[in-house]
Structures are given as C-alpha cells and as structure tokens.
C-alpha cells in the first residue's frame, strides 16, 4: 500500500484546487476569446493586455454582487444546491492522475491526490453522476417552472448518457485488467495508446462526456431561448458562480480522463518519456497537461461548431444509437480478448463497427430535418 503522508496529501490537494480554480477562471476567458475569434469579433480586450485580467475582475464581481435569495424558494436546498454541484465536481478529481505516475514504484511521488485507488474510474463515475443533484435540487428549490423544466431535462439526459459513458470504457478496462487509472496508463505505456485500439469507444466516450457536462450540443438544461436560463435562472452572484465552477471542473476532469484513458496519460511516443530524470518528469507533466488543454480547447471548438440538438434527438442518440453500439462494441472486445486476438484486430473491429453502424443508421432513419408538412414529431400539425 502506498504510504500515506498527511502533509504531502494536504499540499497536493491545495495545489490542485489552486490550479483548478484558476484554470476554470481562465477557461471562461478562453471560451470568450475563441468564440470571438471563430465569429470574427475581438472578444474581451479592455481589462489588462488582451483582456488577460478579465477573469480576476469577473471573480471579484461574482463575490461582491448582491446575493439575492428570492422569497419563494425552498431556503435549505436553494443554498445547498450550488455547494453540491461544486463539491461533487471537485471530489471526482481525487483519483485522476495529472502528472507522471508509476504503480511499480509506490515510494516515488505520484502526481495524483489519492494514489493507487483500485476503484479509480468507478469513483470518478459515481461522483460525476452525483453532480446532477446540484442541478436537480437547484431547479426544484427555485420554485420556478423554467428552472424545474431545465433540471428535469438534465436528469433525463444524465441518466441516459451515463450508460454509454460506462459501457464504452469497459473495453479499455478489460484489456488493462484494472479500474485503477495509473495501471491503465501503465498498460498504454507498454502496448500503445488506447485511442489506437478503441477508436469507436473513444468517440462514444467523448460524446457521452459532452452530454454529462451539459456542454453544447447537449446543453438542453439551460437552453436560453426555451428556458430563460434553465436551472440557474433564480441564482445570482457567487451561488451562480459555484454552478459555473462545478460545470467547468467537470470539463477539466473529463478532459483529464480523455487523456488518461485513451491518449496514454503522460506517455509520449518514440521513447521521449522513458526515464526518471527530472527532465523526463517535466516532459511527462507537460505531455498530460498539454493533452488536457487540447481537449479543453476541443470543448470550446465543438461549442461554436455544432448547433444544439432537439430533445427527442438527444434521447434518440443515447438510446437508439450509443447504447446498442456500445453494447455490440463491448461484446466484440470481449470475444477478441477471450481468443487473444492481436491488438490490431481491435482497431479493425472498431472501424468495421463504425462503418456498419453508419450504413445501418443511414438506411434506417429519415434525415433529421423538419419535413415540408411542418411535421416535427410525426404528429399532425392541425387537429
């Protein structure tokens, strides 16, 4: 068992919290800058050079604004909900490695808050799924119909997308033989990145994670033109800020998970990270954080590329597409694992499944456009 040092752990937690809070603040700036760039605008540029001090000003504003508690809310849960949202998102980070780890040398410092936790990924999933409680409690206790509708949408969405999220990772876990994230990285160091062997699972995991984070194209819980602000309509000042913090922390966690589960964690090809000198450690740290930064950028990129799904499309993608496909993929991976097929067979199976599913879906479904009859759901428009 890895020795437990109180102060090492306490300092690690403090550093991780510091970094995460600042990354969240600057993610908002990145989001605004990238969106401005993609829409040929300037974006925030008044506070500091290139608007770099904007997040600090925004943070101060969040704290100093008047904290309004409407008189019609359910006080206890109204106050509790933002805390639940932020807490569950932050606590999921506990087992996710953010730097070099080596399970074969437990006496070295491991760049993870709680090293060598056997249930690793299970912990992240269980706490990540609890994040929806912040949304549900917030929406219900606001005593506002728009908030309630937003939170009910969110619960349906998160319950549905948790299934493909879990199913798509199972193949990776079967090959690594452990739920422990450090061991999953270790397996990839020896055999190559999982994204090469499980490309379809990677695609499904990313899709499901986007839905879990309530990010566009899956941001139906707070869809502005239908729900005003969704579940956080009644929230102001730092309570709203905590919801924001929870959502962006969830994005950071899932970006780290993309890197750790499918992109080799801290590993780089061509033997760049084979060694234990200080510069290897630095390179490993840069590698995993660089991958995470790329996926964070990817979140913003997709946001300004894809339009929002309709609610029936959202449910259709989860239940009619992702869950059957993830199940078939898992069965194929299990068969290949049982008969000890070479690793390239996994890639081939993944690609074949993807092509097959695309062909099948193209034959089955009518294109998702509103038909000329003005008929969206197959219901008559005039009765």
């Amino acid at each position: 068992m890895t020795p437990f040092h109180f102060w090492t752990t306490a300092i690690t937690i403090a550093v991780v919290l510091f970094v995460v809070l600042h990354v969240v603040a600057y993610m908002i700036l990145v989001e605004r800058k990238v969106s401005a760039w993609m829409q040929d605008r300037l974006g925030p540029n008044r506070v500091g050079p290139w608007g770099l001090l904007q997040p600090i000003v925004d943070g101060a504003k969040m704290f100093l604004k008047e904290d309004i508690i409407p008189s019609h809310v359910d006080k206890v849960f109204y106050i509790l909900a933002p805390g639940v949202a932020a807490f569950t998102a932050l606590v999921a980070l506990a087992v996710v490695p953010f730097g070099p780890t080596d399970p074969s040398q437990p006496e070295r410092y491991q760049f993870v808050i709680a090293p060598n936790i056997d249930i690793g990924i299970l912990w992240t999933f269980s706490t990540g799924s609890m994040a929806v409680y912040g949304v549900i409690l917030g929406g219900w206790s606001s005593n506002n119909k728009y908030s309630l509708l937003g939170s009910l949408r969110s619960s349906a969405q998160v319950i549905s997308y948790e299934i493909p999220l879990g199913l798509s990772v199972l193949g990776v876990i079967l090959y690594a033989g452990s739920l422990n994230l450090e061991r999953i990285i270790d397996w990839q160091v020896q055999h190559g990145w999982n994204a090469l062997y499980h490309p379809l699972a990677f695609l499904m995991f990313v899709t499901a994670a986007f839905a879990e984070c309530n990010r566009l194209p899956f941001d139906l819980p707070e869809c502005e033109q239908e729900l005003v602000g969704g579940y956080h309509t009644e929230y102001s000042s730092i309570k709203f800020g905590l919801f924001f913090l929870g959502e962006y922390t969830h994005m950071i966690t899932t970006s780290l998970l993309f890197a750790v589960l499918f992109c080799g964690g801290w590993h780089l090809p061509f033997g760049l990270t084979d060694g234990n000198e200080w510069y290897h450690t630095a390179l490993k740290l840069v590698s995993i954080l660089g991958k995470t930064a790329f996926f964070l950028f990817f979140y913003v990129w997709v946001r300004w590329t894809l339009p929002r799904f309709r609610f029936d499309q959202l449910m259709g993608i989860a239940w009619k597409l992702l869950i059957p496909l993830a199940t078939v993929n898992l069965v194929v991976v299990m068969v290949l694992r049982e008969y000890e097929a070479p690793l390239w067979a996994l890639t081939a199976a993944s690609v074949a499944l993807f092509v097959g599913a695309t062909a099948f879906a193209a034959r089955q479904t009518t294109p998702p456009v509103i038909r000329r009859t003005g008929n969206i759901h197959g219901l008559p428009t005039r009765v």
Partner: protein
Amino acid sequence: MTLTQFLFWTIAALTGLSAIMVVLTQNIVRAAAWLLFTLAGTAGIYFLLGSDFIGATQLIVYVGGTLVLVVFGVMLTAQGPFVNMKAGAGDWAVSLIVGVALYAVLAVSTLLTAWTGEYPEPVDERSSANVIVLGQALTGIREVQPRTVLAAQRGYTRVSYILPFEIVSVHLVVVLVGAAYLARARRRTSRMPEGVGG
C-alpha cells in the same frame, strides 16, 4: 482523537441527522433529498472503513437511484394533494414501535458479537481495495468465510453467489419491462392519418 475517528464521528453524525430529517420532513421531495445525503454518508463510512468497492457501488446504485425518486417526487407531486404528507398519531405510534424494535435487534446483535479486531489481509499489498476478493467470492473461486451450514456438512466449502445474482438480475429485467409496459402512454385506437396539416 485521531483523524480517522474525527472523520468517522463527523460523517456518522451528519448521516444520522439527515436520516432523522427524512422521517421528520413532510415534503416528499425534501425527504428524498435528505435520503440522498443519508445514503451518501453511508458510502462515506464504507470508504473510511476500507471497503472502497462497496462504497462506490453504494454511490452509483443507491445515491444514483435516489435521483429517480426525486424526479418522480417532483413530477407526481408538484401540485396536488400529495405535496405534504402529514402523519397521523396512529402512524407515529406504529412506526415508533417498529423503529424501536429494529433498533433493539441491531443493538443486541452488535453488543453480543465477539469482535476480534482482525482485518482480512488485502490480496495485493500495494492495493488497499478488495475488488479481486469480491469478484472471486462472487464466482465461488475462493473460499468464503461465512460458510453455510449445509455446505460445511457436505464438506463442500465453496460458496458461489453467481446464481442468486443472476436470479436477481433477471427479476430486475422483468420488473423493468413490466414497469415500462404499465407506464407506456396509451395510444388512441383511431390514429390520425399522418401529415393531415398543410
């Protein structure tokens, strides 16, 4: 008082407090939310006592399951006669009797057990969890400590939980299919022809 003891008593107190709130509150959504905190606190105690896997399962299955309860509570009782559930004096009396009886059974069995204070050794000394033991016990590969009397009499010590597990899961599927059938919106018998509108 060590850190572990402090954490144990804090979590235990919070869990107990929210358990009491489940009973005392009269709003069904609030009760479900307090139940959520009770179950999460129980998971915390599992983690603290070294049963990581049980703790995570508790979070996924029970805490995640409460969500459905909250949602149903919201949807069925948003307005209407069931928002407040006032318990009558008779209900209080019956539940007090049942509660005290259950507490007595638990207290007596806890006090009468001879606690040895020995932990089972972890399988891999570099790992603290017991997922491997659990998996082996489920499939009957490893000898399981609480042997059934019948098995011991036959000199057969391997206890497998795979059959009860499978029976429970098949049962669950049947229940789910039944629930989906009952909850299905009843279609009108005369369907509108498609595309009536211009």
